[in-house]
């Protein structure tokens, strides 16, 4: 089908950028090196550069890299402390790992030609399910059967409570779904929209309408890109803060 449209000049492949494929050879097994591997490795490298090499000097007056590392540390630390309270701080390294991975994947995905690992439901769903299982197990381990009090809204009238319990239960189990789809959907949507606008850009080569459409589409790409930079950060933030909220529910189900 691509052939027919190429004949007309414009090619729309907004979803091609999300294709997963092996970098060497054709075989795709669980362990083969794919573009997913590549971009996750790039993210890890960037983290090493920023958080290990950047802070190697341990200077009291921080340089650029060290300031960024400190800023990220302080930002997530404060978030965890504010939302989960003081007893949530010991889970800070896990939350920080998630935040850093998502933030770096989102930002690296914005490089032209890059592959966005967080735009895949497989990736975000694994993280969301990890958070869900961790929080649920932690909730039962810390509070025992008290944890079920999360679904039994004791401040509501008695007649309403069973209905509310059903709703709460459903919303509890929808958490990992919305948690993962939100991140993947945002990243996918933004990149796909940019790609659609990009496909309109070469119209000037084929048609007179292009003189109007091409500048508009380039402008739209720039605007979407700016928005995507914002979204890349906000989605990492939202994923992390929701993780903190779920953690708080597990630690203090009474609220």
């Amino acid at each position, binding site marked *: 089908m691509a052939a027919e449209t190429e004949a007309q*000049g*414009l090619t729309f492949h907004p979803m091609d950028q999300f294709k997963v494929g092996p970098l060497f050879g054709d075989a795709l097994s669980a362990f083969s090196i794919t573009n997913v591997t590549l971009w996750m490795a790039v993210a890890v490298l960037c983290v090493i550069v920023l958080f290990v090499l950047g802070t190697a000097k341990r200077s009291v007056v921080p340089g650029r890299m060290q300031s960024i590392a400190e800023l990220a*540390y302080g930002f997530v630390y404060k978030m965890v402390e504010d939302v989960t309270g003081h007893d949530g701080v010991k889970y800070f390294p896990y939350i920080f790992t998630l935040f850093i991975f998502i933030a770096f994947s989102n930002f690296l995905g914005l490089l032209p030609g890059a592959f966005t690992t967080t735009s895949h439901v497989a990736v975000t769903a694994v993280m969301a399910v990890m958070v869900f299982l961790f929080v649920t197990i932690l909730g039962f381990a810390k509070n025992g059967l008290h944890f079920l009090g999360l679904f039994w809204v004791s401040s509501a009238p008695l007649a309403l409570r069973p209905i509310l319990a059903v709703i709460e239960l459903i919303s509890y189990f929808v958490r990992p779904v919305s948690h993962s789809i939100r991140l993947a959907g945002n990243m996918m949507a933004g990149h796909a929209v940019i790609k659609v606008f990009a496909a309109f850009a070469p119209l000037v080569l084929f048609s007179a309408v292009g003189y109007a459409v091409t500048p508009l589409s380039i402008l739209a790409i720039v605007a979407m890109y700016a928005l995507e930079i914002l979204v890349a950060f906000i989605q990492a933030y939202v994923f992390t803060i929701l993780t903190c909220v779920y953690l708080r529910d597990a630690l203090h189900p009474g609220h």
Partner: protein
Amino acid sequence: MANTTTTATDVAEGTAEAVGHAADAAGHAAESAGMPQLDFSTFPNQIFWLLVTLVVLYFILAKIALPRLAGILADRQGRITSDLEMAARLKDQAQEAEKAYQQALVDARTEAGKIVAAARAEIQADLDKATAKADAEIAARAAESAKRIDEIRAGAVASVSDVAKDTAEAIVAALGGKADAKSVAAAVAARMKG
């Protein structure tokens, strides 16, 4: 995605081949799920590498980066507090020094006042002494002068009475009288007192 392609180009180019394309596209979509996100054959690969990445990242961050960052921030906090304490101490010292300086200034001022007063008193005493001496001298001189004036006056009076006596005797002699010295002297003395 072929579907979007065709519709979009159709709109753009104003051609009307949509039906055929749509049919093609439907067939194509059936043969491969259009969304790479829903291509389940890639899931094991992605999940495997995600877990590897997260574990690696966790160890890098939790074992190296976060303790180091926590250390840096704690160091800085400690340094800031100690610097602030040091500053407070230095400020106290400065204030003390200023107090001491002011005290020294006040002391010096009172000392200077004392010295000035002493000097003034000494000068006053010297001056008084000198004035008294000068007064005494002046008084002595004045007395001496008065004495000499008196002497001169007495001398003058005596000589005036002598002259008067001589003149009176001469006049009396010239007038042809004979005057004894005693009565002339008595007459001159009476006239002189008059």
